[in-house]
């Protein structure tokens, strides 16, 4: 058992899979010799060499196209698109190419690949380097979408993503890279499509993802300690496949639901989850479904402004209190 940063967990998860399977290769901009701009791939070039860990030009379409073509013909590429916002310059591959080819070809073409993205805000990088794009990915049929919040989940879900026969979008949160957690020694393989109840509770369910998970947990602690409100906090972890069983079961116990979302408000993952709940668990609900999100605006760069727009524990506490007291 070692304490690892989320950043190092990325490299460890990739190393575990590269050591196991010679078909696993890693490409991206500055990911090889430099170890990545977020230092999340440090050591892999040294360990696996230039054949398996390759730097690319600034050609995101070529990166993803190459990953897809390699995946179609036998490799299991992991491609990095540095900042999640850059998904926009190669969105065709996310939206039209790898999620659709298996279906269009009636099962002939497979695309087992992983796209890693540096997701999310909090680093004062401004509107074009801070976005949370999990909802961009969730809305595309054929993708799988994984959003880990802790080092151990990073390792285990990375392994699951690499071994998965479908294209998996793996969203790493830039503001979590420096966070630490215990990670057991030896091989770790988690399961896609499983949410985790991180804190059981009976008064309300809080659904969170990625950087919002520690904030939801902090809010739940304060709601308990300061207000006697006992919230269940679920780390959704995987948007596709989605663990609706765990979520709906929780709703059936607590009868009140909140989401905590970093994505801008409209058509976020929370809108989808709330809609599922409003359809399938309507008669379990004791009150409105409330989403706590970044407002529907581009992200401002300044620290004081950015901190005000991304949901935090205080806003969660305040929203839960206000909602439950109505």
């Amino acid at each position, binding site marked *: 058992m070692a304490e690892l940063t989320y950043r190092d967990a990325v490299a460890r998860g990739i190393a575990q899979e590269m050591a196991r399977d010679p078909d696993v290769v890693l490409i991206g901009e500055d990911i090889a010799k430099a170890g990545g701009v977020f230092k999340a791939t440090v050591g892999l070039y040294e360990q696996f060499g230039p*054949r398996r860990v390759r730097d690319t030009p600034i050609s995101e379409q070529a990166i993803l196209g190459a990953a897809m073509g390699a995946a179609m013909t036998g490799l299991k590429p992991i491609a990095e698109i540095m900042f999640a916002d850059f998904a926009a310059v190669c969105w065709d591959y996310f939206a039209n190419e790898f999620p659709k080819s298996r279906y269009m070809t*009636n099962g002939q073409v497979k695309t087992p690949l992983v796209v890693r993205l540096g997701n999310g805000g909090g680093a004062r990088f401004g509107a074009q380097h801070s976005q949370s794009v999990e909802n961009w990915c969730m809305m595309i049929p054929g993708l799988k979408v994984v959003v880990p919040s802790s080092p151990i989940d990073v390792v285990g879900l990375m392994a699951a993503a690499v071994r998965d026969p479908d294209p998996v979008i793996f969203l790493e949160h830039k503001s979590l890279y420096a966070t630490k957690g215990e990670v057991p020694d030896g091989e770790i393989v988690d399961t896609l499509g499983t949410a985790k109840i991180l804190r059981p509770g009976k008064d309300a369910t809080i659904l969170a993802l990625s950087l919002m998970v520690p904030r939801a947990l902090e809010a739940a602690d304060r709601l308990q300690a300061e207000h006697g409100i006992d919230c269940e906090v679920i780390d959704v972890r995987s948007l596709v496949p989605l*663990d609706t069983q765990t979520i709906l079961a929780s709703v059936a116990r607590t009868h009140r639901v909140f989401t905590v979302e970093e994505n801008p408000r409209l058509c976020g993952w929370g809108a989808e989850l709330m809609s599922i709940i409003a359809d399938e668990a309507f008669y379990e609900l004791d009150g409105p479904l409330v989403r706590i999100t970044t407002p529907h605006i581009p992200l401002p760069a300044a620290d004081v402004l950015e901190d005000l727009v991304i949901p935090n524990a205080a806003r969660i506490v305040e929203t839960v209190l206000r909602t439950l007291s109505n």
Partner: protein
Amino acid sequence: MSKKTVTDDISAEVRLELYRTQVRLREAEQRAFDLFLQNLVKGTSHLSLGQEAIAAGFAVAMQKGDLSFCTYRGHAHTLARGVPVEKVLGELMSRDNGLMRGKGGSMHLTSVEHGVMGSYAIIGAHLPIACGAAWRAQYRGDSDVSVCFFGDGTTNIGAFHEALNFAAIWKLPVVFVCENNLYMEYTPIADVTAVEHPAADRAAAYGLERIIIDGNDADEVLRTARKAYERARRGDGPSLIEAMTYRHSGHSRADPAKYRPEGELESWKKRDPIKMYRARLLKLGVSEAVLNTIDQEIKDEVEAATVACKAAPAPSADIIFTDVYADGGWAWRN
């Protein structure tokens, strides 16, 4: 037929194969057009009538295991790799016997068992994908070549540029084939391109040789293909080939092609690749009877395919929910 006469660097067998392939593409696509007129082809379709020498030459020069990456104008390249006419027409007609049982449609013909790794309908997308397949070959030491077909108009989209540079710096075994048929849909390519030869005049931007060929001459196409494949297999990297040609029909079934200057089609029809190739074979001493037999065999094949397709059922509803994911299904939730 005297093998001696018809054989130079291209053998008699290969020459007949080139002829047969071109006729097969022509007949199958003409049938597709007829079926469209009978309202039996659903959706869109993009024919390669007039461009057959390119598909034939590049395909006949391939080895088994080589991979083709095509566009929405992909019937010819698909058929040229030996995919049965019935499978192609079936897909165009949205029948259960189609290559993808109707799930893909005319713009996405794919037959992995024949090396046809897909037809891509978003301009430019498959150039990087072909790079990826070639990267796999390089990585594993496989000897196959990836061959990527696209049009003149495609040279102006970003993915073209990224793929060419990427292939060049990694020295990938990929061959890029630009079929310059003078038009980007309805717009003359010259109106929207900064250079005369949209592909060849840009080869130097990727450290590549400038190659322009007569795309209506199957022999020239074959020779060029062989050289490029050899280069790729040797590890010397990609090639970019611009093959000049012309499509006899409109851009798609919706297009009567009225934007063409008068006489242009007629003058190109004089250079019809099949007519020219037939004449060459005759001149080289192949007997008319041999060619007629081939013609008849193809006609029979296309006719049989048509009959089979007309009789084939529509795809069954259950395939709507198959093969979104590798487990065979579409479940996005538990």
